[in-house]
């Protein structure tokens, strides 16, 4: 078969990954104080001496880029250049980090204490560290950790300090600045602060991008930021934000550096500190504003067991090789490089594709715990209404089945092979005892409150009960979501087969393509890779004996039904969720519905449906899903934003929404005209 080679390259089983070392082990056996005061002499980029933050500021202030923008702003607004210059200075002061080794040492000490009490172990792939060390010496480096917890960036700096690597400077959201003391501490440990939104502010953008580029170009320190922009509350990877990635790629594209190496880092928590906090937030119980006192209240969390953390430093990705054959750098030859310009379409799509690649690299190296599989299974069971729970041994058997399946799909599963499966299962369950309950050998989600009241209840009480159950469901879903990327493509195919009216390959592909398009705000699906994803899904399902794919047809094997059913159920909450959103848009959306009102309104609608038993999945209450679906409908043109007198309203194209709903529900075949042919 001619294409067998192409398949082989994608075969996830062939992926080789490094081993992990526990860094807490040494912390438990030697003095934290000595560790915090250890001699710290990181290897530097081409021997460049690190740069004082005051010096960095003046380099930025004196840059051609800023000069140009200051002149421009002064011309446009009629302000004195001195005045603009002062504003620039102020922005820079607000933004700039002021890394101090003493603060880092303070953190090294306190974090050692905290980490030891919270976590069993912090495991790091040391080969990745070695690769990083080499990269830091040879090229400007950008660190791209996944973002699941506030802990992430402290943890990253802690690790780099531990391994004697140059400490990164970290792009942090301004919300931290609310916490005066902590904000300054973070600043002194290398964070620099960016306003959350500065859309039209040319000056701010110029200062910000020049600040980042100056650090990067001169190789003073690795620049670290979160490609996902914010913490994922659902543990699904978020659609990457391109702003900072654009900035860090720019020096390469304009020839100011030979190359930039981007290092995706996957941080997987066995138990997320913010677990229920996130669930509440998704349910619309507002997020407490970050405040120092709030942080201290969070001390309660310190007394619990959060299992272990795995940190995988991925293969450094050379921006130069990413750009090879993709970007014609000559396009920058005709305009002075210090004049800011909007990136061309091809640059934009290059950065976008790279961002997706990098997020997928993060996903690929996420370590999955057995609990993730258990959560997937338990959620599916709960949804079909197994009130009395699943027998422990049955659950164990299913977990083993799923373990093998997920490994075949290339999951980076950390399943302790030295333990028996039932030991693995029960230890996972006990770590997450807040979410599951084992009662008389049967396991189920911990949904019922003690003495679950019988009899009539007020509507408010019912709603409250529903929401508290939803907290548990969403928490569990966040663990299942960790494994979503493993099953996503096969699950899309399984759902497509399920929805397609025949087993004609083209028909299945059309259906696959429809679903993939529909969910591209929900999951990480690289733009333009539909055929590739379809082939990958086919390959995996054929390899595991689920399907037979011929030239014309897609056939389900007898023994493939179980896998298929599992995969379909994996995606079902999302399918149902999007359909409910369609229902809402058709039935309840009024002329005056604004984007702001959308979430509360649809939440009400969904609660109604859940209480009436018309909807099985409490996780549809997640505002994440609701926002993503709205974004998808906007993208597809089923909903339009209409500029009103004082605010934007949402205009629903009812016919289109209806037809999307029917197609999602498998009632309508996917139109061939709108999708690419296989």
């Amino acid at each position, binding site marked *: 078969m001619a294409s067998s080679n192409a398949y082989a390259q994608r075969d996830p089983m062939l992926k080789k990954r490094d081993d992990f070392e526990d860094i807490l082990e040494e912390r438990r056996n030697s003095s934290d104080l000595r560790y915090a005061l250890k001699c710290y002499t990181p290897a530097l980029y081409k021997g460049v001496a690190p740069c004082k933050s005051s010096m960095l500021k003046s380099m930025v202030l004196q840059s051609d880029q800023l000069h140009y923008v200051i002149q421009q702003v002064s011309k446009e607004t009629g302000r004195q250049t001195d005045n603009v210059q002062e504003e620039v200075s102020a922005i820079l002061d607000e933004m700039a980090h002021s890394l101090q080794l003493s603060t880092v040492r303070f953190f090294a000490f306190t974090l050692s204490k905290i980490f030891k009490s919270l976590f069993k172990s912090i495991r790091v792939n040391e080969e990745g560290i070695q690769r990083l060390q080499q990269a830091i010496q040879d090229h400007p480096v950008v660190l791209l950790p996944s973002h699941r917890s506030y802990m992430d960036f402290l943890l990253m700096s802690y690790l780099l300090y531990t391994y004697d690597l140059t400490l990164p400077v970290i792009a942090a959201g301004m919300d931290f600045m609310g916490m005066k003391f902590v904000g300054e501490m973070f600043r002194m440990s290398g964070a620099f602060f960016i306003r959350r939104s500065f859309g039209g502010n040319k000056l701010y953008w110029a200062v910000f991008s020049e600040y980042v580029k100056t650090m990067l170009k001169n190789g003073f320190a690795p620049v670290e930021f979160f490609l996902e922009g914010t913490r994922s509350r659902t543990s699904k990877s978020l659609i990457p934000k391109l702003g900072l990635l654009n900035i860090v790629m720019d020096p390469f594209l304009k*020839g*100011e550096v*030979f190359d930039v190496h981007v290092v995706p880092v996957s941080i997987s928590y066995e138990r997320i500190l913010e677990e229920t906090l996130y669930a509440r937030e998704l349910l619309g119980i507002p997020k407490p504003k970050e405040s120092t006192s709030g942080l201290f209240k969070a001390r309660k969390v310190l007394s619990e067991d959060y299992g272990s953390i795995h940190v995988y430093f991925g293969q450094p990705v050379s921006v130069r090789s990413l750009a090879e054959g993709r970007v*014609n*750098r*000559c396009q920058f*030859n005709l305009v*002075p*490089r210090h004049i800011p310009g909007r990136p061309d379409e091809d640059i934009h799509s290059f950065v976008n594709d790279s961002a997706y690649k990098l997020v997928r690299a993060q996903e690929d190296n996420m370590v999955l715990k057995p609990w993730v599989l258990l959560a997937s299974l338990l959620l599916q069971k709960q949804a079909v209404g197994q009130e009395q729970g699943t027998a422990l041994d049955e659950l164990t058997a299913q977990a083993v089945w799923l373990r093998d399946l997920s490994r075949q799909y290339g999951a980076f599963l950390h399943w302790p092979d030295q333990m028996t499966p039932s030991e693995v299962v029960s230890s996972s369950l006990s770590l997450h005892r807040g979410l599951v309950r084992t009662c008389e050998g049967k396991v189920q989600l911990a949904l019922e409150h003690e003495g679950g009241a019988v009899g009539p209840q007020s509507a408010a009480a019912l709603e409250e009960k529903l929401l508290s159950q939803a907290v548990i469901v969403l928490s569990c879903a966040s663990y299942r979501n960790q494994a979503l990327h493993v099953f996503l493509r096969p699950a899309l195919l399984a759902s497509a087969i399920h929805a397609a009216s025949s087993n004609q390959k083209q028909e299945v592909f059309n259906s696959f393509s429809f679903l993939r398009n529909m969910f591209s705000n929900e999951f990480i699906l690289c733009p333009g890779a539909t055929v590739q994803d379809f082939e990958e899904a086919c390959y995996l399902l054929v390899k595991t004996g689920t399907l037979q794919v011929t030239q014309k047809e897609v056939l389900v094997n007898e023994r493939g039904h179980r896998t298929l059913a599992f995969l379909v159920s994996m995606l079902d909450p999302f399918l149902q969720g999007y359909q409910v959103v369609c229902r809402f848009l058709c039935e309840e959306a009024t002329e005056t519905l604004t984007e702001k009102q959308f979430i509360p309104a649809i939440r009400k609608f969904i609660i109604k449906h859940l209480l009436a038993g018309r909807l099985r999945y409490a996780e549809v209450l997640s505002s994440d899903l609701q926002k993503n679906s709205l974004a998808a409908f906007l993208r597809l043109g089923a909903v339009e934003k209409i500029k009103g007198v004082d605010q934007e309203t949402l205009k629903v194209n009812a016919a289109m929404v209806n037809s999307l709903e029917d197609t999602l529900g498998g009632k309508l075949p996917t139109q061939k005209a709108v999708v690419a042919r296989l």
Partner: protein
Amino acid sequence: MYGCSNLMYCISEHAPHSSLQEIMKWNGWGYSDTKFLFNKKGQAEFTGKRYKLSGMIIPALKEWMEGTFGTNMQHKSLATPALTRTAVQPPTLNEAFVEELKSTGVPFSHDAEDRVFRAHGHCLHEIFALREGKVGRVPDLVVWPNCHNDVVKIVELACKHNVCLIPYGGGTSVSSALECPQEETRSIVSVDTSQMNRILWIDEKNLTAHMEAGIVGQDLERLLNESGYCTGHEPDSMEFSSLGGWVATRASGMKKNIYGNIEDLVIHVKMVTPQGVVEKSCQGPRMSTGPDIHHFIMGSEGTLGVVTEVTMKIRPMPEYQKYGSVVFPNFEQGVACLREVARQRCAPASIRLMDNEQFKFGHALKPQVSSMFTSFLEGLKKFYITKFKGFDPDCLCVATLLFEGNREKVLQHEKQVYDIAAKFGGLAAGEDNGQRGYMLTFVIAYLRDLGMDYYVIGESFETSVPWDRVLDICRNVKARIIRECKDKGVQFQPFSTCRVTQTYDAGACVYFYFAFNYRGLSDPVHMFEEVEHAAREEILANGGSLSHHHGVGKLRKAWMRETVSDVGMGMLKSVKDYVDPNNIFGNGNLL
């Protein structure tokens, strides 16, 4: 021997034998009597008598080579000593053309050596093949026109009999311009202009001179000097390259800051094309008469016709010359200084900045010092710069300078430049260093042949680039070369270095050198070409031009379209189509 009917018995008709061919290498650079070698004591030595360095021992070269390339004196890769005539394909002759050519009395030859000598320039792959005794497609015939009218006759005959003509001047091309196109099925005739080497007149009132285009640079300067004049056009190849070649490739000379590049020097050109002779009707110093037809001729690289006569500006010989040099703590400072010099428009006749690797290389080429005193002085200088001034020997770089003109003004000028240099941390490093730098320019070309004896292959190439990109392009291209070599399995890190050789108002000319040890590689030339290609891609991606003065030839023509745009390409093509519809000048360069 006229009327000889069997061509195979009549190899040449009055082939002139005073030509450079006899005293030059057939498979390497320059004069046969001049080369680098390791003598019996294992010391490097430069043979011959022609250069200042000739006959001297160069003690540090061996160690430098071993350290830079990992070469080993035991591992040699020597060239085939002589051309095997059987390796040369018998000529494809157009008998009717040859018959008529005879009647014109223009000398010609189809001797294998004559043909092979004119079948190549000095690209690495060309020399490498010759050293291995490999000969590809070569011209079938060489003709030696003696004057403009001879050329007119030759071109007429070529058109009549559909023969392909390739003009040949000094043979110093480094763009594959002289390579015969593989696909050419017609008889190829090399038009060697070396006999057209006279200065026809000197006009002292207007300070111009009219020359035949075959005159070689060093002869032109020598002859003009006898009358107290010079052109001031001194490309590094001036010992061998010809006036016609300069015009055809848009050449640039070392002292362009005073005298200008070829386009600034040329007043009038006569070129013989298949459509007839093209020239202007007067010698006005500047004209507004539509696009300048000289600009179709300059850079046409032998694709339109043969340049036969040129009128050039001349200047009185400079009263005073002074070399100089400046040491900078690092390359960045050096470039900043050159930029400032250009901004103030006070560049000396020549100013060149070598990077650290080249600085070290220059050091390795220092001849044995004759006295204890000079060696003591050297040591003192070194101590002063590295210890007292704190320059890092692995970062510092050096600029060489040449001032020319009226003595007083030269000294004034010199002070101005040194003052600027001082602002960028530059320290004056003496005349000797400067002079040696320029002398090395002529000698360095011989060094490649030595390298090739020891499995080292290398090349230089150039570009021009805006000032703000100079540092970036230098860094990136050097790094690209190193990375490409590594990716392609070169064991020893290549020698990858550069220098800024010319300054302009808006940018600079940058020269790159790269060389590596190819022992253990199965197809070194192919690999070399891939690296060179990648380096050129990198140059273009960093805002550099396709060429500053080497030209496009066949080596770089793949990039022409993106360089001049589709329409630009169409413009050039339409000129070619009109001037030479049957592609008589079929060397395949440029387009």
